[in-house]
């Protein structure tokens, strides 16, 4: 996919892009850039820092502009309105020119000093290296416990053995980013979505700091949303290429229920005689379950139609490598 308006190449095309979404992080911009530059001092490849201002209402953009004016490697991207972390990260990815892309939070909670290690790990032959905040410096009740539960659920449901899905500090290979399109609030499902297209994933411990400036933009209300999103994720990663199978599997349960009630009805008919009111309720319930099963089957067909009409989705082959 090409993004119109991608800028013409400057003197040295960066091979490494560091993307940081910012939302009302005015005080954090300057230290963030300094930290990244320091951390990448020994990096020989040319790199760029992409700061994405996600519709901030403070003077984040002015700070970004200043940083960009001071350092050629810093590029700024200002979004029309606040679209959330996932879309802001996507904006950065779309404009990143490097073959290796690193994402991190703009709030200084991730430590840019971990970037070289992440890249080194990536070079060992991975497509995605996830940071793992072993010693997380956040509020226990509001952040750590919900996150622990969510991570366990994600791991169980997707089978991707990543301990910390929520850490923004990650390193990606460009080829992977070209295959995964993130939308809505999917950034915490990056490992699972990447695994579903066949990416090789590694995880490594990274440092984590308490927030210095500004406020956290998360609340506990997202837990319910994460649960719903998980259902979607499971559906998409498992049945993306064959939704009908998923819906048929789901319809087995109502089908079974319909069967049970049919048997009950027959038993009631033969054992108690036709006057018994169960003779009416049981077939009614059985018919209802049967209708539900049928409905789910039809929905599966609709999903297939949607899939076929979208050639890209129907033709997507998983990523593969030549071995040996």
């Amino acid at each position: 996919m090409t993004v119109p308006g991608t800028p013409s190449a400057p003197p040295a095309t960066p091979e490494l892009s560091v993307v940081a979404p910012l939302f009302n992080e005015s005080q954090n911009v300057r230290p963030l850039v300094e930290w990244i530059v320091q951390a990448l001092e020994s990096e020989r490849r040319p790199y760029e820092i992409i700061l994405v201002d996600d519709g901030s209402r403070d003077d984040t953009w002015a700070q970004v502009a200043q940083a960009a004016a001071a350092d050629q490697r810093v590029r700024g991207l200002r979004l029309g309105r606040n679209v959330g972390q996932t879309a802001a990260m996507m904006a950065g990815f779309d404009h990143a020119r490097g073959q290796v892309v690193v994402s991190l939070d703009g709030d200084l909670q991730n430590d840019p000093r971990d970037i070289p290690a992440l890249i080194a790990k990536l070079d060992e032959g991975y497509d995605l290296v996830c940071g793992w905040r072993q010693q997380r410096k956040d509020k226990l009740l509001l952040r750590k416990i919900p996150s622990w539960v969510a991570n366990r659920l994600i791991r169980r449901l997707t089978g991707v053995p990543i301990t910390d899905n929520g850490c923004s500090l990650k390193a990606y290979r460009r080829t992977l980013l070209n295959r995964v399109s993130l939308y809505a609030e999917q950034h915490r499902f990056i490992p699972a979505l990447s695994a579903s297209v066949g990416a090789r994933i590694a995880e490594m411990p990274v440092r984590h700091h308490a927030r210095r400036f500004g406020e956290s933009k998360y609340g506990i209300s997202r837990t319910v949303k994460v649960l719903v999103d998980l259902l979607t994720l499971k559906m998409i990663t498992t049945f993306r290429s064959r939704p009908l199978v998923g819906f048929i599997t789901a319809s087995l349960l109502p089908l079974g229920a319909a069967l049970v009630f049919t048997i009950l009805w027959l038993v009631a008919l033969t054992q108690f005689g036709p006057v018994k009111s169960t003779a009416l309720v049981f077939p009614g319930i059985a018919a209802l379950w049967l209708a539900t099963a049928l409905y789910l089957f039809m929905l599966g067909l609709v999903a297939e139609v949607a899939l076929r009409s979208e050639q890209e989705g129907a033709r997507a082959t998983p990523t593969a490598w030549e071995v040996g």
Partner: protein
Amino acid sequence: MTAKGVLMEPTEVPAIAAKLSGERLISVVVPVVERADDLVALHREFGSELAARGEQFEFLFVFDGGFEPSPALLALSHEASDVHLLRFAQRFGETAALRLGIERSRGEIILTLPAYLQVRPEGVGLLLDAVDGGADMAVANRSPRVDSWLNRMQSRAFHRMLGGLSEHRFHDMACGARAMPRRVAEALPLYGDMHRFIPAIALREGLQVQEVPVPQHPNDMRVRVYGPGVYFRRLLDIATFFFLAKFTEKPLRFFGLVGSTFLGVGGVLSLVLLVERLGGTPIANRPLLLLGVLLIALGVQLIGLGLVGEIIVHLRAPHRRAYRVRERI
């Protein structure tokens, strides 16, 4: 121009607004769909105002099915090369009329005007100034507004309901006078009955919308009385807009919420009955049993529907971006 859905293609917005060149063309798009005053007078009043500003302009009148250009207007279009008349064979509504007008226009700036004198001609200059000042879209806010208290209350309720959806609250979305650069007009997802929400849609697309106070035309100062059908349709419009704004990317959040509520209530009902049955009370003659099972079935179906929605959204994801770049350095 194609209607693409609420989310937009990743188009680039140039940092600097179109410069005043003196040679630019302004396309005035006038959808004639409901009430129409003397369009020749409208052309005269607004045309002379634009001419006084030294602008080049063209007028596109789009007649919805059932509306005919008056003989005077036809005559005008024959003698003036800057007046174009377009006509739908059937009724397609204001949104389609706007779209056609934008498609057929050639100007760098699109100025939409209602088919009756709603704002004073001077207001047009204010709108154009706002666009020259860098706004992606300038929308008129008739002020001071001379209106009956009834109309004002209605309008306030309407805007308050919509205001809850976005960070910004508009004051006069019903005003049809808007100015925008061509790229914005072409990028707007205009479909259905969404013309009423154009400022709100533009804002959701990440465009910079500016509300400009514009003097109201004396002809517009009168009491409007609507039938109940109009209110009902307006409410439906708001509900649609709300749904599209909140759940286009995440249909399961909506269907899942409703579905799991049904599922939960149905489950509790069935459980209560099960406990009663185990206690020895026969439940087969209880209507509650059917209700419980029905709710469970309905819940399952709604969640299934939401999942299909999610699959469709997922399949479209590679082609869409939720963000719009405003500036780049």
